[in-house]
């Protein structure tokens, strides 16, 4: 019995200590000149969907849930956000080459079409991020049109 009690105390202390190790938050008020809204025409209807369903991991502004204040939740979120931004960052979309922008726009459409994005472990918690068929069509249509406008430039 004593052993279990000691173990719990140790775990508790460890739990309290890790609360102080916090990753830097992905929050930036500044809108970069390379933001997608500065480089492409994004209608408000589409932008709102992107903000709700994609921006937590694919922009410079994450909308943090309350439980992200409890470690190790924030660490996990941090790695997801880093990974997501590495693949696609709407806040810095204009810095990609035209070629890469086209690839990204096509991948956005196909990932959403195939229900690969937003990923299911994200929508489990953020049910508002789930894209209905109408919303999916809206983003896919915008993505395809934007991509076509790019390819006609070349």
């Amino acid at each position, binding site marked *: 019995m004593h052993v279990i009690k000691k173990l719990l105390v140790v*775990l*508790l202390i460890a*739990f309290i200590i890790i609360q102080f190790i916090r990753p830097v938050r992905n929050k930036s008020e500044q809108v970069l000149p390379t933001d997608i809204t500065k480089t492409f025409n994004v209608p408000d209807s589409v932008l709102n969907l992107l903000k709700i369903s994609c921006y937590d991991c694919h922009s410079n502004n994450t909308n943090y849930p309350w*439980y992200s204040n*409890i470690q*190790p*939740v924030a660490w*996990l979120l941090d790695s997801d956000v880093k990974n997501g931004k590495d693949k696609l960052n709407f806040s810095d979309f204009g810095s*990609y*080459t035209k*070629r*890469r922008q*086209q*690839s990204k726009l*096509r*991948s956005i459409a*196909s990932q959403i079409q*195939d*229900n*690969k994005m937003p*990923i*299911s*472990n994200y929508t*489990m*918690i953020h049910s508002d991020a789930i894209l209905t*068929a109408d919303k999916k069509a809206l983003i896919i249509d915008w993505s395809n049109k934007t991509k076509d406008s790019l390819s006609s430039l070349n």
Partner: protein
Amino acid sequence: MKQIFSIIAISLLLLSACKTKDIAETNATETQTDQLYACSMHPEVIGKKGEKCSKCSMKLTVPVKEDAPETTIADTTATAPTTDKTSITTTPSKISIKGLLDPYIQLKNALTKDNSNDAAKAGKALEAAFKSFDKSALSVEQKKTFDDIEEDAREHAEHIGANAGKIAHQREHFDMLSKDMYDLVKAFGAGQTLYKDFCPMYNDNKGAIWLSESKEIKNPYYGKSMLTCGSMKEELK
């Protein structure tokens, strides 16, 4: 004390929620009753969805629209880039992209055999080849062209390498990668005879190209199910 334990319990619950794998793959099946479909290879054959073409027994997949002859778009892109032949001959032969083409061809061949694991290996090899490519012989202008293509192509190669077992996803990136590789060959020369082949069906019938080392058509987008489908559009040197 009890409260703290309940907090631990909640955070553990959240953790496990984050780790659960992607199971929910809903099949979005759209049922349109009156829509007619045509065969993608024989547009004159028309029937209901799910029926098979009388000429090649492929499923009828192309929705028939009365006012949109979309097939012409694919044809113009396939025939357009024949004008800049002079740039090939003026390119110094010192620059060789063979190290990049070899793993690409391996990748293409793996996909024609529906072999996702070999495709992943070749994808990784291509990514490595891009990383170690010696750019010192490139002029400023050439380096700009190369970097532009590399930024995109390397990411596709990386994705193909990381997605063993998901051949559909690999093929999607192979489509975009093939355009990059074609531009690369156009800019720097192939150093060998290559063929630009065209599959009219892939990507919702928008079509897709690939590069091949042999004249014989072997379709990397559909593999065994439609191996000889496609046509040669251009010979590259």
